């Protein structure tokens, strides 16, 4: 039995614990504006806020860096709205959206027919639509000491990722890079282990442009055998950075963030195309809307050989319901997507390594977003 003095002591300790816990809940801050190391936001253009609340979204890792910048600017301007984007891959994003967990999904691959029919359950009176929001070059990055500029073309890329070309000093690579000192190292090819829209775009490009060297079915899962995998664009970037002789594919912003060398693609034009945002914009400029109604899924021209166009590109769609969005998050979703599609939002993309939408498509998106309900 506790003596009175020890009882008092225990009570005092307990009170101390509870009060310090309460104090803890009050002393944190969301604002990093004063952070000397980073922080601070640059709000570009006017942002019309609408709808307070918390918004969950998830999906493509390729657009994660663009999303981060948009969310930062949007939240700086609209203090009552919180946007929480989780990068789990395009496949994961679509699944979470179809389960009703998120307000919209980010995906580099448009909705498939069966996904569209499943979306009728979560969009009670409508179905899912793809709204393109950001484009970007898929950088093929490599880590090879002593080789700073590498040129590859579609058939060679296909063979590398298919495991048919296994050494860096293979004759096919030597032919495209006569001046480079290619070592006899084994090529460590990395691909995505999760369901990725980036993988799907790479597959589409190789199927279209590799002249038969890539015969695998298209889809978000990596179809070929061999090679090694990593999860997420960041995962592949990390592995390429750490492994000598590695090659992998991810959106350009990851190559920039990790200071990795990227491959220039020989499309048959006079000079090989580097992976830059302007070159990607040139390639995306040819895109046509292939979706019906409010769905703005795009068909990209992977076979382009116009000078300076980098053909290995992706476009990320934000997938929401055309009718039947969750009422609690509808206003915030529309306001945020409006900002992303606006001139201000699109102008933040280029410095990050993304390609803004071509004007015609951006205009269509800006007209469609307000009609979501």
């Amino acid at each position, binding site marked *: 039995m506790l003596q009175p003095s020890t009882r008092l002591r225990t009570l005092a300790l307990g009170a101390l614990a509870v009060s310090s816990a309460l104090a803890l809940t009050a002393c944190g801050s969301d604002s990093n504006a004063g952070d000397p190391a980073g922080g601070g936001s640059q709000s570009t253009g006017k942002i019309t806020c609408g709808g307070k609340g918390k918004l969950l979204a998830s999906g493509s890792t390729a657009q994660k860096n663009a999303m981060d910048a948009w969310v930062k600017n949007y939240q700086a301007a609209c203090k009552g709205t919180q946007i929480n984007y989780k990068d*789990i891959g395009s496949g*994961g994003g679509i699944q*979470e959206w179809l389960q009703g967990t998120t307000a919209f999904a980010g995906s580099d691959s448009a909705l498939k027919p069966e996904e569209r029919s499943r979306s009728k359950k979560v969009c009670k009176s409508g179905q899912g639509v793809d709204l393109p929001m950001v484009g970007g070059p898929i950088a093929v990055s490599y880590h090879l000491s002593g080789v700073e500029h590498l040129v590859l073309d579609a058939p060679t890329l296909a063979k590398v990722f298919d495991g048919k070309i296994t050494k860096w000093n293979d004759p096919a690579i030597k032919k495209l890079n006569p001046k480079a000192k290619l070592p006899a190292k084994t090529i460590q090819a990395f691909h995505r*282990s*999760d*369901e990725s829209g980036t993988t799907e775009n790479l597959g589409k490009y190789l199927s279209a442009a590799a002249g038969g060297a890539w015969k695998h079915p298209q889809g978000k899962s990596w179809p070929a055998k061999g090679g090694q995998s990593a999860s997420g664009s960041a995962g592949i970037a990390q592995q390429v950075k750490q492994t*000598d002789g590695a090659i992998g594919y991810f959106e350009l912003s990851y190559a920039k963030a990790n200071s990795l060398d990227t491959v220039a693609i020989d499309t048959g034009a006079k000079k090989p195309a580097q992976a830059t945002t302007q070159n990607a914009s040139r390639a995306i400029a040819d895109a046509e809307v292939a979706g019906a109604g409010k769905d703005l899924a795009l068909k990209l021209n992977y076979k382009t050989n116009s000078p300076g166009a980098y053909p290995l590109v992706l476009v990320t769609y934000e997938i929401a319901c055309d009718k039947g969005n969750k009422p609690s998050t509808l206003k915030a979703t529309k306001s945020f997507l409006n900002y992303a599609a606006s001139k201000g939002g699109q102008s933040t993309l280029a410095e990050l390594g993304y390609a803004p939408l071509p004007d015609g498509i951006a205009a269509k998106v800006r007209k469609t977003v307000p009609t979501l309900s």
Partner: protein
Amino acid sequence: MDTSPNSAPTGVRGKAVRAGDRIFRGLSRGSGLALLLIMAAIAAFLGYRAYLAVSRDSVDFLTSFEWNPQGHPPAFGIGVLAFGTAVSSVIAMLIAVPVSVGIALFITHYAPRRLAGPLAYLIDLLAAVPSVIYGLWGALFLVPYLDGLTRWLDHYLGWTVVFDMSEPGSPARSLFTAGILLAVMILPIITNVSREVFRQVPKSHEEAALALGATRWEVIRTAVLPFGRSGIVSASMLGLGRALGETMAVATVLSPGFAFSWRLLDPGSGTFAQNIAAKFNEADDFGRDALIASGLVLFAITLLVNGAARLIIARRKEYSGAAA
């Protein structure tokens, strides 16, 4: 065991006493019931969902080597996962058990007295380090560090298929590395339990051996190890249970892949827990049910291991008799 009477004593205060007793007994019984119901509900729910998935599987669930529940028709099997889990756990045990027993012997018999106490304390604390931190260390420190070792193994021991690398120079994100990381993780646990067991060896046994002129190692060999054998086994089972269910550490060092290969140094494989962590995001309802099915297999294996450990402890209690 407990010999306290189960019936409520009739006190001088009569009814009030019985009510208090009834309430308290009801509360504690209710908690037991709640726990039972929760566990039964979990088992029923998971079992049902697993059944839904496995019944529609188009290939043999237990032996196939692919994971495609979203395919037409759905095809998924745990062959690779079972292999990966078993191999990484076996490697972990092969490394961890002898070393842990060595450390436990060191702490109880060889270390200077003043060192032994803090050392035991330190290893106790290390047993509490969360697995995600082991994962960080494994991915950022161990994997690059093991490059040299894997190349050496491939070069000198490549004639054994196990240590042959298909592509020498590939990063060490293989089952071998996962096994080593798991070994480091379960070392503190096995050491702690073994140390407790060795401390409980009756002094009379050790002193008898000493009196007969045994060297220190012979004392350990004849008095300590036989006494502690079942304790060591149960400690190993505890460690094995932890290694089987380990998710995050394996997820950081293992390159995800569904290829089955005896070449343990090749990157790419999967374990049950790592597969669930990797695939749950992109799984629809059916895919999640398939993951639940694989989780239940893992659960069953862990239960078997725990049950075996408990049997061993129970048998030892009957035999030991030396209540020092």
